[in-house]
């Protein structure tokens, strides 16, 4: 019996091996073969986008053929699929409404640092940046035919001002004094204090999103905007001005169809987008996403690991990314940092914080945590071309010091502080030097922590890693941490202030939340720095004083190091040339290559059908 059992166990293993080999045998590219599950029933007469003078009922496009369909990968589950109220946290407008159903006023292109106008014609301020005038393009309509006017904009912002839990309530209350309609297409914002960033920050898709507008004629009739879900397919909700209309929601997907009556095409501002149907699809883990991509089940995907992308590209050479070769990936606007709690001993001493930085081997973090897909640039902001002139203000010697580990310097500092090296770890007064690294439930930040932890261990600091979920953010806010791997210096993409302001103010007391502008969660305090950054905030981007102040502020920041630049984050966003071409890449950088941001409308109206 034993022999038979063994035989069967062997057979069992053979099955496992078979499945292991199965994937090896499927390595042959199957580019032309669409997977069964995603194969839409062939439309009897596929309407050609360019030669469709007669306006179709958009719902007919639900039957569009695969080659007329754009399928976008969403790696996150569709949760709360009927919450399309854009002003409520955790809404699902990211499943297409933000990018396809609505039109942003304008979009910031990281490629050239330019603001590109969309539904806005002009958005300028007076010399002091206190009065901003917005002019809309002519002929914009909601998809139900009602004209889109500045009344809708005023209503949308007013709604947020009146309700403290809606949208950007506190921001608008802080800045907007009043809004004034000039005519249907023109309005003025009177600010309480000058703000040179007012337009781009709120309406320019600076990072990911911008203020979304809602139709006044619908929302006026809503009893309680706080609990209104903005979802009713019968009534055409969610209603937007964009070129696509929400046609269907399943458990894991949203399906959008083209609105041939879209104002942009009608007014000749832009041609109708070519995809008749757009699908946002969640298929599960990266393994399944990748294999779906290999089978052409997607036309573009969200961030993925290098290994998965290379496996996909090897089996389907139609897949491209921002760069044609390694590192492939596009840099994310939020640089990764190690926040140090600068109130907690022994890290309240800036030299000790520098020890942590000196031990860090950033190249190894790039090589392992990022598999070589990002670049070396120890800044608190992204290494974008638009940021280079500000990055050049940082002391060259300081940057050079961060490019490689300086274990001898770290050792010298520790010895000077009275530490001695024991068998494994540095000790002082009989106590081991330890460090708890907190990481959130986010694989990228966790891997930075993993690699750094080993570097610290080798050097002789007994580092441990703690992975936290919701408690991670509270710990930062309340100061319950030594160091955290996070992105909390995020902000700047084209000017320095947004990142610098994260460090202003007094150190927030432990157990108390930081108050923006008054205290900070890094628990660090430098009066001169706060003063400088306050001034930078009021200066125009081309003011020479801004460069001067920024240089001084950066000197303080890098000298004191309340946070340690760890790595440039990156997003590997794959595009598939099988059905659609003309994707934004480094060679053709017409728009930031993010398919989950509000600016994706630019890309969708640019891509063309593959021959």
């Amino acid at each position: 019996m034993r022999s038979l059992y063994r035989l069967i166990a062997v057979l069992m293993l053979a099955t496992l091996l078979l499945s292991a080999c199965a994937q090896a045998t499927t390595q042959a590219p199957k580019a032309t073969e669409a997977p069964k599950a995603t194969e839409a029933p062939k439309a009897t007469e596929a309407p050609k986008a360019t030669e469709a003078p007669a306006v179709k009922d958009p719902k007919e496009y639900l039957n569009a053929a695969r080659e007329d369909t754009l399928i976008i990968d969403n790696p996150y589950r569709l949760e709360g699929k009927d919450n399309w109220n854009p002003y409520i946290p955790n809404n699902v407008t990211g499943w297409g409404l933000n990018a396809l159903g609505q039109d942003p006023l304008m979009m910031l292109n990281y490629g050239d640092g330019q603001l590109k106008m969309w539904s806005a014609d002009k958005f300028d301020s007076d010399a002091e940046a206190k009065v901003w005038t917005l002019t809309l393009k002519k002929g914009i309509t909601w998809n139900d035919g009602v004209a889109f006017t500045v009344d809708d904009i005023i209503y949308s912002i007013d709604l947020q001002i009146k309700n403290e839990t809606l949208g950007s309530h506190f921001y608008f209350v802080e800045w907007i004094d009043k809004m004034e309609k000039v005519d249907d297409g023109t309005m003025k914002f009177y600010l309480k204090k000058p703000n040179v960033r007012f337009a781009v920050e709120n309406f320019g898709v600076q990072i990911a999103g911008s203020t979304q507008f809602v139709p006044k004629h619908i929302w006026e009739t809503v009893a309680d905007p706080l609990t209104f879900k903005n979802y009713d397919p019968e009534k055409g909700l969610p209603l937007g001005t964009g070129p696509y209309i929400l046609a269907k929601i399943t458990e894991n997907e949203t399906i959008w169809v083209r609105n041939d009556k879209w104002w942009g095409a009608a007014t000749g501002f832009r041609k109708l987008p070519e995809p008749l149907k757009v699908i946002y699809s969640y298929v599960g883990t990266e393994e399944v996403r990748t294999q779906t991509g290999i089978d052409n089940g997607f036309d573009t995907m969200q961030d993925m690991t290098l290994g998965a992308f290379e496996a996909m590209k090897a089996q389907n050479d139609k897949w491209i990314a921002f760069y044609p070769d390694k590192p492939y990936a596009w840099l994310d606007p939020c640089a990764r940092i190690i926040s140090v709690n600068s109130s907690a001993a022994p890290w309240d001493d800036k030299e000790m914080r520098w020890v942590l930085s000196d031990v860090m081997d950033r190249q190894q973090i790039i090589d392992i945590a990022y598999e070589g897909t990002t670049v070396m640039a120890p800044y608190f902001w992204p290494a974008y071309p638009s940021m280079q002139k500000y990055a050049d203000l940082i002391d060259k010697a300081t940057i050079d010091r961060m490019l490689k580990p300086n274990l001898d310097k770290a050792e010298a500092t520790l010895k000077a502080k009275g530490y001695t090296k024991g068998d494994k770890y540095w000790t002082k007064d009989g106590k081991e030097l330890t460090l708890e690294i907190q990481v959130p439930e986010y694989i990228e930040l966790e891997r930075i922590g993993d690699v750094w932890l080993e570097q610290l261990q080798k050097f002789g600091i007994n580092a441990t890693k703690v992975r936290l979920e919701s408690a991670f953010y509270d710990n930062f806010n309340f100061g319950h941490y030594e160091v955290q791997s996070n992105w909390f210096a995020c902000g700047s993409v084209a000017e320095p202030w947004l990142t610098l302001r994260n460090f202003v103010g007094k150190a927030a007391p432990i157990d108390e939340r930081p108050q923006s502008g008054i205290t900070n969660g890094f628990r660090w305090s430098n009066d001169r720095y706060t003063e400088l950054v306050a001034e930078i905030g009021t200066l125009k981007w081309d003011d020479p004083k801004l460069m001067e102040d920024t240089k001084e502020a950066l000197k303080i920041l890098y000298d004191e190091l309340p946070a340690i630049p760890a790595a440039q984050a990156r997003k590997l966003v794959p595009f598939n040339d099988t059905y659609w071409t003309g994707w934004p890449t480094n060679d053709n950088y017409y728009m930031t290559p993010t398919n989950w941001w509000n600016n994706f409308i630019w890309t969708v109206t640019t891509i063309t059908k593959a021959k």
Partner: protein
Amino acid sequence: MTVEETVDPKESPATRRVNVWDSPWLNTKFLVGGSIIVVVILFGLLGPFFWNTELAYTASSPTNLPPMWMAKGSPEHPLGTESNGRDMLASLIVGIPASLRVGVLAATLGMGIGVLLGSLAGYLGGWWDHVIRTISDSVLIIPSLAVLIAIASYVQFPDTTMLALVLAMFAWPGPTRLVRSQVLTLRERGYIRMALLSNVPPLEIMFVEMVPNMLPWLAASFTGNISGAILGATGLEALGLGPTRVPSLGMIINYAMTSSALVRGMVWWWLPPILALIIIFTGFFLMTVGLDEIANPRLRGYGNGGK
């Protein structure tokens, strides 16, 4: 229940064992299973003398190397490496005993507490029964997964021992209930009644008369529970709730899955930990079968059509 009166006391398991002279421990299944487990343990114990286990840590080795017999493989990393720069051989040397420990620890604690409390509740009855049942029923109906996730989001399990303790916390009420009901059944048996009548001390009845009677079932449960605990730990690790520095089989599998090892064709990453799980399970299973036969000589020769 007239049947019970015909029971020959010599046939009760306790006495039966004494009558076996031909050393029952020489049971082949038991020995084969035991050897497998011993080899697995030795692999973990002796491995560190032959291989540098520091290589099991992140960033200790080049990334994504295939095993040495494949193209681009290197003898310095005979089983290859994964994408965090961990050496697979070192990871297995560290990970296999770690997982085995979780399984055995959690299962032993869970079963141990379960047998003890279950026997007490079933045998003594009365208030013992009430208190034990209320506690175990309450623990039983709390969704353990929910509690585990909630605990794990505040406490990081620094090593697998902690993970095992937490798993054991929820592993005892099941056995408690089952043992209790078994004891209730057994109590009605003739030989136990007889023992009760002849004033045998309760503890002796419980552990000399009753427990051996439940042995096949207990041993099977134990094997199942070891696998269950290893898998439970693996599941928690897959949800991202386990230790993260020192590898265990669950952690290797988890990293392999989140890093798309399958689609990348890195068979050397995901298959070895699964094979290790199968081997451990097979070892314990054979031991169980063997144990049954040792405890019940009548079972020997099974598979040859019985006696």
